């Protein structure tokens, strides 16, 4: 499993981040705006976990196309 996050940078405005999330993930404007605000407040926001690295890369590339910064990290194994 890998985790995809959006990284807040010093360049993108919250409005732009929300628009990108709305378009890439198909989220409602309200949900996209709330993720954008969380990224701005915390420096990053987790967008989802994916079993395949390829799917996460595809979404990361879409975010880069919209001018965003994305991060893919391995999801740490948890004890059963």
């Amino acid at each position, binding site marked *: 499993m890998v985790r995809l996050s959006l990284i807040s*940078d010093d360049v*993108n405005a919250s409005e*732009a981040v929300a*628009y990108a999330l709305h378009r890439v993930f198909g989220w409602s404007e309200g949900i996209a*705006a709330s993720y954008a605000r969380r990224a701005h407040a915390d420096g990053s926001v987790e967008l989802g976990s994916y079993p395949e690295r390829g799917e996460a890369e595809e979404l990361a*590339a879409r975010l880069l196309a919209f001018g965003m*910064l994305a991060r893919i990290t391995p999801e740490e194994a948890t004890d059963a």
Partner: protein
Amino acid sequence: MHDYVEAVPGEVPELRFSEPTAVSVRVIFTELGAKLSDRRDGRRQRQFLARFAPDVYPGENEEFHRRWDEPLRAEILGALERVLRAWDGSAVVRFTDQRMVDDWFIALAHARWLYVRRDGDLLGRVAASQVNVAWVQFVQTQLVTAAGLAI
């Protein structure tokens, strides 16, 4: 007369520019197109392209860049070319479909990398870069407003 960009939301959203602002934005888009199409492999060009396709993994990114850098460049260039083909620099832009909004958004998002690094450091002549980045950001925010995404 002052420079302006105005968002006009509606069924067919619009951006209305003052004439000098429209000309400036088109010049920036044209410059971006030239830089993105430049296939020379010098240090400056590599640094420029790295701003479009930054690393996504905390460690090794070579495979990611091998897979995605070219599709990413093609997508951005495609969006930019459609914008430039459809817009001659006139003062009113009418967004007749969603793809057109996305194309403008993508063109504006990446136009900034002509003037600023990902960490926010300005490039070249700082005062001029600051003005250009501010305008590009403002046009992008107005675009989002015109398209109806309220934050």
